[in-house]
């Protein structure tokens, strides 16, 4: 089963230091090698565009947006055996990133 893990942006968090980069790099390398991580990426907040539809009308609003706390800063698509495995990966991820929030959802097959 696949899970999408999304890390939320946190404007109060300190800028990532070298230690975080190194640890995250090693983590990503490890779960890639183990065949668990299928795709991952960080998201550029400046490029955000909002597309809203209402009736026949479609509105396009350029970002960045004020409520940055709700924005997604990065994602990882993982292939796991169970919900618990996904949860365990999310725990390890959060341990590296420090304070903040991730959302974990199973991808329908």
């Amino acid at each position, binding site marked *: 089963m696949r899970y999408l893990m999304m890390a939320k942006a946190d404007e109060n968090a300190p800028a990532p230091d070298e230690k975080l980069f190194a640890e995250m790099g090693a983590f990503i390398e490890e779960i*890639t*090698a*183990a*065949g*668990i991580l*299928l*795709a991952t990426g960080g998201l550029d907040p400046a490029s955000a565009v909002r597309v809203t539809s209402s009736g026949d009308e479609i509105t396009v609003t350029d970002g960045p947006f004020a409520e940055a706390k709700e924005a997604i800063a990065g994602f990882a*698509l993982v*292939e796991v*055996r*169970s919900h*618990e*495995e996904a*949860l*365990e*990966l999310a*725990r*390890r991820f959060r*341990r590296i990133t420090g304070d903040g929030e991730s959302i974990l959802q199973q991808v329908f*097959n």
Partner: protein
Amino acid sequence: MKDVHSTVDAVWKLESARIVAALARTVRDVGLAEELAQDALVSALEQWPETGVPDNPGAWLMTAAKRRAVDRIRRDRRREAKYEQVAHTAGNTDQHEPQQDDVLRLMFLSCHPVLTATERVALTLRLLGGLTAAEIARAFLTDEPRIAHRIAGAKRKLAEAGAAAFDMPDGQELSERLASVLEVVYLVFNEGYAATSGDDLMRPGLCLEALRLGRLLAESAPGQAEVHGLVALMEVQASRAAARTGPDGEPVQLHEQNRGRWDQLLIRRGFTAMLRAREAARETGGPPGPYVLQAAIAVCHAQARTAEDTDWAQIATLYEALARLLPTPVVRLNRAVAAGMAHGPRAGLDLLDALADDPALRDYHLLPSVRGDLLARLERHAEARLEFTRAAALTRNAAERAFLLRRAAGLAVQDTGGITATGPPGVTLAEAARDFLARDDLDTSTVRSYGQTLRRLCRGLGDGLPLASLTPGHVARVFASAWGDAAPRTWNRHRSAVRTFAAWADLGDLTTDVERRAEIRTPVEPISAARLDALLGRPGLALRERTLWRLLHESSAPVRTVLSLNVEDLDLADRRARTAGTWVTWRHRTALLLPELLGGRTRGPLFLSDRRPGPARTPGEADLCPETGRRRLSYERAEYLFKQATKALDPAGDGCTLRQLKELKDRG
């Protein structure tokens, strides 16, 4: 509590390979390494519900296992030299840190040549996938004790193979050992891929296990083109998982699949793996291996936006190369399919007909199914229909059977519209076989024997084959594939069954292309007189057996002759009997036993079965004792009893045959 359990299980599955691999390197014993890791797991289950799951559960387990290793060593230090070495290395904590090659080494170990294929699979899933014996059993549709036994046996063999088994192979050995690892991974993948929607989820889960193992292997051995080839092959095949079955679970063939349902993420991963394979191949040189070729074929299919866009010429070329490396019947079958698509049905049919005699394909429904397809494209509808019906009879998948029968029926519609519909089709092979077996002048064992032959004939040629078109060539083909390796006796039995059937059906001689085989009697190793005495001296041995065995020994007469003896044939005074035109003679030991066995009987079979015959089996009058109502002892039963009694004498454990008694006369 349950939550912690499932967390521990998840952590274990994620981490166990590295933990066991690191421990195995230091203690040089897979069984012990796994035991230590399991002990650590048990303490996690005990402690985590109290303390909560630690921050780094993997490291926690590793540390706990390491500590157990040290404890164990202290305890066993004096007992075994093996632990001395462990004690030495265990003192040095660096030794326990996971190393780059650990997991790869563990894979090589799990797929070691001293193990059988099934042991390799079980051990790999156990040690590298962290699956329990119960999970493996569910995935392979077998029971847990069997898997547990298999894993234990594998560990024992590895322990016997000694420390050298732990060494990393290199050079020529590396590629051989690697081939064995790839084989195991692909086997696991295919087992999962073959699962159907009704199956336990553990089965399709095997695909994920195999993909993970493959990806892990690709990271551990990046220079090996075949590893990337296998990964590419599995990724691309897995990408079609959702599209390869229809709403009712029926298989959807590749060219009919909805390509919009193919998983593009996996396809892209497959392409990437393929590029890495090419890169690795460029560096090492040499022709592409079987996995790279199969991956290239899979990639070809994945690149086609529609079935019509498929580059069949390229695929046919790749299959040609693959068939040279790996001329298995299935590869050759696929090659014929590709040639049929690339160069027309005639070309495909030519390649296919060379496969018709292959015993490996005799029950493989895809052979007639592909043949039917090619024949249909050549507008040979009647033959095509027959092949589809045959394929339908062979497949075990109900949805596929329905699909094949629909194809057969579709052709029938076209035929009746044309000019080929002329009169009734006549009797089919299956109908004739049924009528033949329903004759009332055959006894049950003959019907059973003939039935075996004719059923195989029907399966090989199709129930619907018009009887009139049955040729000696057809018969020869079935014989070659079904009984090519059988004993001459079996071959000749089926041969005479076909001859009888042909004579009954007025078909002439159908066995002109099936030669009678010379029956060689297997040499008989006699049982020594001393052993026979010991055997006969056993307490509780029935009088009948004692007499029969003694008589066979002393007379040296054929077993059937002795069993055919009747009481009225016996001349007790002269120690001989006349039967079927020959004399059977014996000596004093048999003479001592016979009167007791007769017990006053004056006629009927000498050796009687224990029970009266059931109502379903009515033996002829000659085989029935008029005094007791019992039947004559059969050869099969007598042989069975002797085999049971002599199991301990036979090194193979099968027991001895009655014929082995007979040869003793000269030495006796």
